[in-house]
């Protein structure tokens, strides 16, 4: 019902949809509170559950930019894993944490820049490009680590994961909120947001309007690489063991969050706020399913259903849109 309203009055849609998401979020929290003796309402649990979604959430924020342009990045998980392995490896060999962090971030930037370069300069589809680099980055991480897990880090490195603001809010969640605010400002308050939407809506038209499509594309993929390396630092502070397979399946989770947040996989429509709320919805869903003892198979099943429903409804909306503008 709500969606049909959207088609006729487009500007109201994002607001409505995000409100639905917020209601969904509250509803889920209330549901799980009823089902499992209110455990989820304890501040330590409610805020603690954000720990598990921050890495995916950061990637999802960056992916929102990419998906708004009609692109995709499947290599986010591998980029994170490679950055983590580089960090662990550098620290183990040089014992210099500052150098390790710098190299980790440079790795993320380089991975993202390579994606951006290929996608902006050639006409190879982002899906294919990042599918290839996904294997490439994973492979490099595997070659570097071999049979080792890098698991020695300085004590202070755990700061992000095991300390909490006011003893309640995990620091990585604070960081996530800060990054979200930055992304939201870029997306809603600067020209960049408009560029992204126009590229996603009709790339050629955007080019004629004078949007530097190539540099925007290069920029957002590089930014995504950077965000992945930050995610890897957060991951390692929580789970101090860098190995190549830590990023497996994260791309799907991140894309699910973006699409659930109201960004169209066809491009042209995007919502950073939606992604932010969707990440929290997924976090609550995951925690709640675990609390009611259905964490494994059933959670994965529900994640799949959410993705399919979102994709179908967006393709439906997209065809409606085309019919309208065409006729």
């Amino acid at each position, binding site marked *: 019902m709500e969606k049909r309203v959207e088609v006729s009055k487009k500007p109201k849609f994002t*607001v409505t949809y*995000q*409100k639905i998401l*917020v209601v969904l*979020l*509250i509803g889920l*929290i*209330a549901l799980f*509170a009823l089902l*499992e*003796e*209110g*455990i989820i*309402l*304890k*501040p*330590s*649990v*409610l805020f*603690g559950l954000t*720990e*598990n979604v921050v*890495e995916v959430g950061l990637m999802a924020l960056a992916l929102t930019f990419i998906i708004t342009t009609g692109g995709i990045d499947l290599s986010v998980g591998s980029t994170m894993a490679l950055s983590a392995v580089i960090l662990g490896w550098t620290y183990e060999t040089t014992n210099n944490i500052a150098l390790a962090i710098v190299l980790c971030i440079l790795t993320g930037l380089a991975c993202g820049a390579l994606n951006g370069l290929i996608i902006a300069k050639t006409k190879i589809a982002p899906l294919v490009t990042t599918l290839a680099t996904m294997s490439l980055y994973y492979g490099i991480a595997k070659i570097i*680590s*071999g*049979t*080792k*897990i890098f*698991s020695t880090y300085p004590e202070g490195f*755990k700061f992000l*994961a*095991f300390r909490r603001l006011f003893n309640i809010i995990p620091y990585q969640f604070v960081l996530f909120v800060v990054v979200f605010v930055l992304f939201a400002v870029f997306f809603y308050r600067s020209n960049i947001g408009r560029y992204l939407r126009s590229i996603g809506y009709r790339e050629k038209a955007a080019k004629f309007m004078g949007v530097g499509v190539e540099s925007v594309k290069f920029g957002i993929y590089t930014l995504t690489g950077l965000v992945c390396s930050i995610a890897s630092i957060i*991951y390692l502070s*929580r*789970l*101090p*063991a860098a*190995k190549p*397979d*830590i990023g*497996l*399946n994260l791309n799907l989770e991140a894309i699910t969050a973006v699409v659930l947040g109201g960004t169209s996989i066809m491009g042209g429509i995007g919502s950073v*706020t939606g992604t932010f709320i969707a990440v929290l919805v997924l976090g609550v869903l*995951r*925690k709640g399913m*675990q*609390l009611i*003892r259905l*964490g*494994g*198979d059933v959670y*994965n099943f529900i994640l799949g259903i959410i993705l399919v429903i979102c994709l179908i409804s967006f393709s439906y909306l997209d065809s409606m849109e085309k019919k309208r503008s065409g006729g």
Partner: protein
Amino acid sequence: MKQRLSKVFVMVMVLALIASVFAGCGSQSAPAQNAVQSDSKAADQKPADQQAAKPAQPEKKIRMGMIPKFTGVDYFIACENGAKKAAKDLGVELDWQGDPSGQESAAKQQAYIQTFIDKGYDAILVSALDPKSYADTLKQAKAKGIKVITWDADVQQDARDFFVNQSENEALGTTLMSNMGKELAGKGGKVAIVSSDPNASNQNAWIKAIQDDYNAKKSSDYSKITFYDKIIYAGNNQADADKAVAALMTQNTDLAGIFAISSMAVPATAKACTDLKKPIGSVAIQGLGVPVTAKDNMKSGLMKSVVLWQPYDLGYLTVEFAYKYIKGEVKAGDTSFKSSLSGKTQLKDVKYEDAHKITSDGQVILGKPIVYTIDTVDGFKGYPDPDSGLK
């Protein structure tokens, strides 16, 4: 701006709602927590028989959370069936959670552990994907008085109380190596090891045990055997394993033997031998994997035997041990543990010893490794028939 204000408003509403519900819950949950605390104190101080004589709070079930490496494979299904049987026998509430093979990750295991801590379970039983990732989380659980017991695959020693081990690593390695020696007696040849992944702590321990046994008798019994210079990691899903082993055997046509030491590697090796049309008997396969999956290959003569234990009993022992540890019937420093499996059937006529050995580093040993042959393969418990362990 208007949109944002409305959003802020909604958020504030959420927080208010949460706060009000939480305030309502607070008064209820506080005495319950006290009760748990005094209960555990009682368990620490009083001997077991005294507790049994005082059934004042019969509804207070012991609750445990149990995590496999991954779900949906025959090995862990057998473990799950055994663990659930033990939970039923002992009246324990068992929460079994894990991700299907291919979807599993240390981060997800950590999330389950955190949930079990949040729920205030009495014990957390985990088969670890790697020994280091969530050691800190397990230490937090220990600090809250939750018993942490690893089973099947261990974590670093200071992060757990006990490790319920299927068999002593040396015994497994020696059994595999001596079987290989017997099968290649006289002719010898090049052998390779196929493991699951480089971080699997038990596989690594068995590899070391195989190599130690080989090095000890390199110049005598195993003088004609040489090792392929690399260890093949076949991964945790069947398709990857099939590819890895097929590649190994295509590149090394002269392999005389393969140690397939994960439940994925055994069927993968058998498949590669069949696909490459290796004559039966030309490659000696020493498998460490679920016997049910090797049954057809044993019938055809491709494999003579498979080494394993009873995963069903491993699951059973883990829950029973955790139960008795919570009850204070076994404690750190004990050197043996008598379970309801002790002295009972392990496989056909073979029986478990009268008590399980507890090593100085806190490993509870299920028993000796079992060599399954075509005659004894049906004695495998817990899979595919979940009730087969009851017989």
